[in-house]
């Protein structure tokens, strides 16, 4: 019964080209998804698994066309259910490297329930959450991450609902890994995707992604050349939190929360700045970092949280192993004849 658990995990040398599928990529020219695809194709050979041990699962939406464009095993599911399908894949064969491609509609709206529960269980797989704050495939309706007041085809007078911050949701669901990247910085994306795969547990990578057609410039505040240095901070484990065009701004922890300071003003030195600890078990500061946003704060990019907790799939295997060792029922014949039975002659 265990034959499909004996997948060969030996590292093999592969290149990006090994993961390029023969399918025509049908995303719009200029779409942020192209950069994400390219980053993932860079990460897969670094992981070193055999090609057949990767499985990419998706739901519905532009992002969910992803599996067709990667030359691995792939499953293009139904709207919102990628995380549930991927859970079944991973539990069934825990030796696969399982990747979920999903969007802000797929995982924040229709599949919100599966999103929080996969995180709560800490199933060991990687979720790439493409966040363009809009429904692209259905041509421009607001999503659960669209900022309050967003004017879209279904909110001509502006949205009147509060958006989700995926990072907050991850922390609230007791997530063990959360990282954030932007489609304009492929190098960082590749780095955090690799960090995600190294993490045992559910890794959520939020990618702030531009929709050229329906939400052009939605992340402009963060990604534009003029603003990005002041509006983003790339967190690095063990390093003080410094940002800004002139590397003179920093984050400190005050009694009431985080605060942006200027190094050299009011006696602030680098020593006063908060040092990033992505491995901290306590999610308190991670939550504060995930919530930071302009105009008062820079947005936090990089790995925000990466805490070690047991994974669901390991615990499944452990229980099975223990039961097999301890139970007197070794096969179905044993089971059928267990308890009260009697012979009729």
């Amino acid at each position, binding site marked *: *019964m*265990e*034959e*499909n658990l004996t*997948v060969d995990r030996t590292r093999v040398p592969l290149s990006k080209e090994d993961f390029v599928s023969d*399918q025509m990529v049908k995303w719009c020219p200029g779409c942020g998804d192209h950069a994400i695809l390219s980053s993932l194709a860079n990460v897969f050979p670094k992981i070193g698994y*055999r*090609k*057949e*041990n990767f*499985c990419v699962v998706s739901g*519905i939406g532009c992002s969910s066309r992803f*599996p*067709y464009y990667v*030359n691995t*095993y*792939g*499953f*293009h*599911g*139904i709207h919102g*259910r990628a995380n*549930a*399908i*991927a*859970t*079944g*894949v*991973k*539990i*069934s*064969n825990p*030796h*696969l490297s399982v990747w979920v491609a999903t969007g802000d509609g797929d995982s924040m709206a229709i599949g919100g*329930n*599966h999103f929080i*529960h996969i995180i709560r269980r800490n199933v060991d797989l990687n979720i790439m959450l493409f966040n363009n704050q809009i429904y692209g495939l259905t041509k421009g309706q607001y999503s659960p991450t669209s900022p309050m007041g967003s004017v879209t085809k279904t909110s001509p007078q502006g949205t009147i609902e509060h958006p989700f911050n995926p990072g907050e949701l991850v922390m609230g669901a007791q997530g063990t890994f959360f990282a954030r990247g932007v489609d304009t910085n492929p190098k960082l994306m590749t780095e955090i995707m690799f960090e995600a795969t190294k993490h045992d547990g559910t890794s959520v990578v939020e990618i702030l992604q531009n929709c050229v057609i329906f939400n052009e410039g939605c992340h402009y505040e963060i990604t534009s050349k003029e603003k990005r240095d002041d509006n983003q901070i790339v967190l690095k484990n063990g390093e003080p939190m410094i940002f800004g065009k002139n590397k003179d701004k920093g984050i400190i922890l005050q009694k009431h929360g985080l605060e942006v300071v200027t190094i050299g003003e009011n006696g602030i030195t680098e020593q006063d700045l908060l040092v990033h600890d992505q491995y901290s078990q306590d999610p308190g500061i991670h939550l504060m970092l995930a919530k930071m946003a302009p105009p008062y704060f820079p947005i936090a990019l990089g790995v925000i949280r990466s805490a070690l907790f047991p994974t669901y799939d390991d615990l*499944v295997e452990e*229980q*099975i192993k*223990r*039961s*097999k060792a*301890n*139970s007197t*029922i*070794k*096969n*179905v*014949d044993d*089971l*059928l*004849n267990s*308890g*009260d*039975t*009697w*012979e*009729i*002659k």
Partner: protein
Amino acid sequence: MTQKKNKAVTKEDVVVKFVGDSGDGMQLIGNLFTDTAALEGNDLANFPDYPAEIRGPHNTIAGVSGFQVHIGKKVYSSGDLCDVIVAMNPASLKANLKWAKKGATIITDLDAFDQKAIEKSGYTSNPLEDNSLQGYNLIKAPLTTLTKDALKELNLDGKTAEKSRNMFALGMMYYLFNWKLDIAFDFFAKKFKKKPELITSNKLAMQAGYNYADTVEAISVTYLVPAATLDKGRYRNISGNVATAWGFLAASERSGRPLFLGSYPITPATEILMELAKHKSLGAKVFQAEDEIAGVCSAIGASFAGSLALTTTSGPGLSLKSEAIGLAVMTELPLVIVDVQRGGPSTGLPTKSEQSDLLQALYGRNGECPCIIVAAQSPSDCFMGAYEAAKLAMEHMTPTFLLTDGYIGQGSELFRIPKVADLPSIKPPVAEPNDPDYKPFKRDPKTLVRKWALPGTEGLRHRVGGLEKENISGNVSMNPENHQLMTELRYNKVMKVADTLPEQTVHGNKEGELLVVSWGGTYGAIHTAIEELLQEGKDIAHAHFRYIMPLPKNTEKLLGKYKKIIIPELNSGQFVKYLRMTFPQYRYHQYNKVQGLPFNVSELKDAFNKIIKEK
């Protein structure tokens, strides 16, 4: 045991019902009574009849919980009318008196018939005193007082002592059936290992009940039920839901595909989930999902990864799973969906049985979306039902329904234990590594079945999904001709399953006046009715369908051999609709009941006789 002074009579079969408040322990003594009958060698079937509330309002009709057992030489259902009713309070008596045979023995707790309880139950006067029960053998025993007396030396508080009155009543039943108390005592020793005080109190209460029955004049006749005439072999008592779980474990072992269940608790299907969760030693991976949709979707993921994938539910849950079942049809992956049907629509009657999900299983999805449908006919038959559903799903790479219902899922009966090696082989079409000819939707020309290529296998990387795929290559395709082709292929693949199915058999006359056509959990009552009518010399036959989609190949011919056809169903006529549509050349009569209750043999006989007489 003391010498019995009462006369013992032999009875071929006896129907007993235990009824009381839902906290009175009726299910417990019902199960214990059943197990004892089984160990005494009787054939049996039982049916728990309990309210949707965990503890309904005390002493009201709404709170009545019941457990009916039919024991005898050969029984096919849990029986219609009762020979013995044990009623622990006025409400349970009022709710169940209609099920008592003329002259039935009714055992009641005299102490429970106080003014307040009588009024709460809706009686206007005390039925034990107003002569309304004159036609019955009424035994008014002060069960509460007697139980408390029996347990006096244990110094228990009043409430705890009172709780044992169900065991006192059960002790009386052991006397009535001439059974030894040892079987119950062994059970207490096992069940209450960690609570020795319960072993003592239950034993004392039961012994006291037994002795009381021996002393009291009211029990004038005791029963001797002859041992069953069963085929040789090893037997056990089994409920339909447990049999379903075990059938899947057997299919997993025999096919070599590891078992994965993705499920969400729902009455009356939850026992399958609970049972499989116990058997991790057999490698079963059981995932209690966050909702019904995650249950089926995780199963589909597991199926893609190579597991024997299952999801278990009841009507409302099936509605939620519909879209995902379509995904499994589209991706042509094996998946077994168990629907333990209950009364609907919506939340409906969660604890009552119905056959009203058949059309949903057949057609309740978007697009043209055929699935295989198998229906089990009795609690023990759920084992083979599950086994076959798993076999068909894997060998034909298509979602398969197993339809059972609350009545057979929660009811139990004797089960002849098979050997796993004797079960039919299961050969899933798993693709070989590096198969140069592998294409995701390349098919076996005879069966139209595609290969199952498991992630982790070298050289078979491919993608599946809910978008229409080009035949053979598996590339996404919106081509009009291809969609037509794929729609036909998916349908024909399911229809070709009929090539592997046995022909539909009939019980009774091979041709003639009346054919009774049925499916699913109504088998027991209908079979009993047919047997009785055949003995009365009626021109009648019975075809009970196990395979609903596709139908066995000889169905059309078979239906043509009888002048009249009647289809009794516990719905408003769903299988009959399907047959009318499939074979419109015949005229079909129907007999339907939608009360959340199983058929009675007598009502069926009346209905069949009426049709036979019709010109």
